[in-house]
């Protein structure tokens, strides 16, 4: 009992901080989403009124548009960042030479802030910029490059840049995961005549499920909270024509009044959106982790 009390005493300071800076703001914003707001003032209780408004025109257009972009972003990151990352990790695993060096090379962009990465690529992809010059020299493109101002291309450019930015993370995690698999398993497979491809799909992948689980869950949370790269490269409105709008950029505009660079806020709507996003992320993450848990195999 006294040990119990002692343990509690040790946990208490951290718990108090967590409660003050995480739980309390979270609960106040959940609570606030049930009220009507005028400007910055909380007015009367309206129950789920704000949530209903999220699904009405014109907000529904914004919400489903942004949600669609977040889903595409997640899919794009899974393929471009994690798929290719796994491939590189597998290559590094087999090439014992220079593995550490290449791992650092892949990890380098991840050390840069997404704000710096965004600003850098914005310069590179600008009309008259370095990428345009390169493509024109190679004869792959003609005239001015305007991908970031093109509503069909802009989102994919951003996803590719985000994947480039964080490629080092899956490489790091997968390499560590592969090294944990006992080498005898690969040896035995090789003696039975399995090639590298076969070994990847029948041995490495099933045994990598714990790593894949954490990478996928992290990517899920990060892509649905995507804000910084859009903010730096396309502005908070997800230009052009909302083609790069995400749930969090829309949240920002509602909360801080940047819809059309005009300071009209809609705090009630913002808090309702934040609540939904929180539910989506927590439920999604739990389901994902449990699903991957079932897939785990013990060699």
């Amino acid at each position, binding site marked *: 009992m006294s040990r119990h009390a002692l343990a509690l005493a040790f946990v208490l300071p951290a718990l108090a901080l967590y409660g003050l800076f995480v739980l309390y703001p979270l609960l106040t914003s959940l609570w606030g989403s049930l009220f009507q707001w005028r400007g910055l003032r909380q007015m009367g209780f309206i129950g789920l009124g704000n949530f209903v408004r999220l699904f009405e*025109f014109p907000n529904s257009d914004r919400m489903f548009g942004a949600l669609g972009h977040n889903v595409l972003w997640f899919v794009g990151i899974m393929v471009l960042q994690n798929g290719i990352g796994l491939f590189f990790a597998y290559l590094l695993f087999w090439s014992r030479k220079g593995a550490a060096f290449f791992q650092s090379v892949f990890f380098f962009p991840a050390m840069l802030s997404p704000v710096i990465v965004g600003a850098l690529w914005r310069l590179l992809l600008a*009309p008259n910029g370095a990428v345009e010059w390169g493509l024109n020299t190679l004869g792959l493109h003609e005239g001015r490059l305007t991908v970031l101002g093109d509503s069909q291309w802009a989102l994919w450019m951003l996803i590719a840049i985000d994947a480039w930015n964080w490629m080092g993370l899956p490489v790091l995690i997968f390499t560590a995961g592969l090294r944990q698999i006992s080498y005898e398993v690969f040896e035995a497979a090789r003696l039975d005549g399995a090639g590298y491809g076969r070994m990847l799909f029948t041995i490495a992948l099933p045994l990598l499920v714990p790593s894949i689980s954490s990478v996928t869950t992290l990517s899920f949370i990060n892509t649905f909270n995507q804000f910084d790269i859009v903010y730096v490269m396309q502005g908070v409105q997800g230009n052009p024509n909302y083609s790069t709008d995400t749930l969090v950029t829309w949240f920002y505009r509602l909360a801080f009044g940047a819809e*059309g660079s*005009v300071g009209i806020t809609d705090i009630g709507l913002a808090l309702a959106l934040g609540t939904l996003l929180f539910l989506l992320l927590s439920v999604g993450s739990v389901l994902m982790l449990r699903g991957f848990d079932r897939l785990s195999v013990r060699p």
Partner: protein
Amino acid sequence: MMVRARSLVAFGAAILVGVSAAGAAFAEETVTIWSWRTEDEAAMNRIFDTFEAANPDIKINLQFTPDADYQNRLSTALRGGKGPDIAQLKAYGELQPLVEGGYLEPLNDRVPALAEMPATATGGATAVSDGKFYGVPYSVPVLGVFYNTDIFAANGIAVPKTYAEFVAAAEKLKAAGVTPIASGGAQGSAWALEIGVGMIGPTIYGAGFYNEMMSGKANFEDPRYIATLKRFADLKPYYSEGFAGVDYTTSTQQFINGKAAMFFGGSWENGSFKAQNPDLKFSVFPFPGDEATDKPLVAAFSDGSYGLVAESQNKDAATKVLNWMASPEFAQRFADELGWPAARPNVTSNDPVLEEMIAMQANTTPYLSLVGFRWQAPTASSVIQAEVIDMVEGKITPEKLASDVQTAVDTWFKPKP
């Protein structure tokens, strides 16, 4: 020794008491003013030095916060009761939440001079809820075409009087290898393109259109508004190369560095162009309509105002300052120091560009999307800014943009017949 030290202390205390007593008799009050115009800090300080010289009992403490953070800082401070005495306020729709929150004092009785200011100026500082004035406006910018006078002279081009002449001039410049119009709104700076649309509008839809829109006789799907959008898109061949990827900052640099001959913008560019390149020879002309006139109709709006914070502890001193800010003297100082058209007519100027803009103020109509439709979300501006690049690029038609704007404002806009 000890005794002497003590008497010294007593003497010092006496001096302190004496000084503070004199201070009380002199009652020096500090009035704190917040503004988002960081780029005008030096000029604003010079303007208020004039006031302080005439009113030794009031000290002005000017504090600047960058535009991007200003609204946040102000609203947070006002909620916490830690705001300034006088705050620079955004105009029209953005002013309303602060009025509704009860953070501002009405100024009708405190600043009588507001009644004699032009309605174009005070319109942006009027509350929808009670129709009272909540701020002293400081500037009525006009929208026009900035042009590089050297490039025009070198190519033998006169200021165009009709739209046809304007296109001919742009064509000639393009043939000479000069970017005719520096233009761009990428990366979230599409407000600069909305200004282009707002500038062209009056020359097509005329002076009565604003009232027709307000009374519900016309809406955004009116052929005149669609023609405005179409004209903005028609000029694409003359905009900066790679238009869709060019942002506002890049386009201003093209004009400032003499790489482009024209720039569609508001009066405030005058000061910033001069500051960034003192050698740039430029002026401004009103965008021409189909028919030649001496005084083309120009879009104008109130940029913002300075209001009195309800929780201010020095209301009397602050009111004195606001009354001075509503005076012709302030308007003149403002125009001289900043090169912007002030909120009062009859300001004189020896800056030729500003003189041109003051002349343009003689025939104005409200900048439609800002003055008329920035009251509630979704604003007309938010739709125009989102879709305008796609429209110029030919991905969507002007009709589609117009109907999207109308659908958006229909959710809240109530015409007043």
